[in-house]
């Protein structure tokens, strides 16, 4: 990875789920070192910034040491969700791969 920017995609897998208007992203680091890096850099603020103007409220991060994993709750992104929005992917299932593009600096 020398010379290249580190992205979430290099360290973790992400699964997207939806609850109404709220996007839920589970981030699963591939090893303990990855967990430590993400614990430090993949903050709720960083995720909020990455989803920009789509976010309507507080982004919440849960840390699960046992897994280990992180769960992010991102309100508003789905703009009404599967019944409220006319966009093609109303569930936001594709958005897991948007988080994978987040650059960790």
């Amino acid at each position, binding site marked *: 990875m020398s010379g290249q920017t580190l992205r979430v*995609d290099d360290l973790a*897998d992400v*699964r997207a*789920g*939806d*609850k*109404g*208007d*709220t996007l*839920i992203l*589970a981030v*699963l680091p591939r090893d303990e070192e990855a967990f430590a890096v993400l614990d430090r850099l993949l903050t709720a603020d960083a995720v909020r910034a*990455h*989803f*920009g103007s*789509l976010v309507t409220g507080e982004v919440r991060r*849960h840390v*699960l040491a*046992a*897994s280990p*994993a992180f*769960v992010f*709750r991102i309100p508003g*992104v789905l*703009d009404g969700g*599967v*019944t*409220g*929005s*006319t*966009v*093609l*992917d109303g569930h936001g*299932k*594709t*958005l897991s791969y*948007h988080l994978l*593009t987040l650059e960790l600096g």
Partner: protein
Amino acid sequence: MNDGPVRVGAGAGFAGDRIDPAVELARRGELDYLVFECLGERTVAAGQARRLADPAAGYDPLLAARLRAVLPYCVASGTTVVTNSGAANPEAAGERASRVAVDLDVASRVAVVTGDDVLDVVRGHDPEVWETGTRLSEIGDELISASAYLGAEPVAEAVSLGADVVITGRGADPALYLGPLAHELGWDLGDADLAGKGTLVGHLLECAGQLTGGYFADPVTKPVPGLARLGFPFADVSADGTAVLGKLAGTGGRLDTRTCGEQLLYEVDDPSAYVTPDVVADFSGVTFTPAGEDRVIARGATGRARPDEIKVTLGFRGGWLGEGQLTYAGPRCLDRARLAADIVRERLVAIHGLEDKAIGVEYIGAGAAFRGLYEAADPAEVRLRVSAHVPSAELATAVGWEVESLYTNGPAGGGGARADAREIVAVRSCLMPRDAVKYAVTVVS
């Protein structure tokens, strides 16, 4: 009561799921229970819309096909089928299931769970609706369904009556698993710790192929073999709640700590408080231990006392969705698609009277899925999609029509027009007191 582990298998993870993986499990899975989870949040409301048009409809259209495919094997192996395919009409689904059994000439006792339909009761309670923050009576849209999330009790009761096929409408998905587990293993459903452990099993299995590599696979970072023949998972659950997850040898997919870790957190807002009608389950201490090829031990779930209120999904007639799509390719394709979108928008507003804000435009192939967060500057091709939320079928049809008419009236090189118009059922949620929701279990003769 059963001393040894009980084997529960996942036959479907959504209404449109594949049938052959369930047949494989029924045929050689040595299952005690085969569970078909076929209800999304909107499915019951959509079923209710069908039932209003045809009183005999409203249940999962694939119910008969699924039962025909698995029942002969289930009868032979003593496997009980449990499904929420009853959707908006469990009684009619029960009758249909009985007819399938008669047609197949197999002896199957069908039990039906009702009581999730609380349309009349909810109006009297007039609860606050989560999404709008207002009372139900203050919402102008026509309410067509109200479905309470039933728990594991009615499922356990149906099983205890000796049912070979249990059909429910709306319930908590994990309850389809927890009910049979509680019955077989002698669990008291009031034991929150065991209810939490059984709910974990249900949560992991309810999306079927999502535990064995579906919705997980990535050819570079997460390769999964044999997705075309993906095997669905099962669990051997012991009386202490420990579950050994597995899939059949010779089927596609993979089941390991990574696939389990992802599914554990799927659609889980707060892993320490996963709320169902049966328990507030705590998954925060769950661990997965490898136990051989495609075998993983899951343990560590627990729970707190069930909530006093029951979640209810409200279905409203929500107008119509119209859409049209057209592809542009090569030099300046995004510019031409933008021009096309402007033309359609202008005509939908000026000629058909649509509100401008009701119209959505996406450039598929140029970052549409990421909703404006990313844009491909110079894509090889782009597919224009115009969609609109409108009050009538006629206006919905106009959207696709205006896109199609770009063929001869719009930018150069537009091809592959497609149009669609469909009625929308809008779904919202509220809570009702537990004692306002009464279930019943009926054996179909």
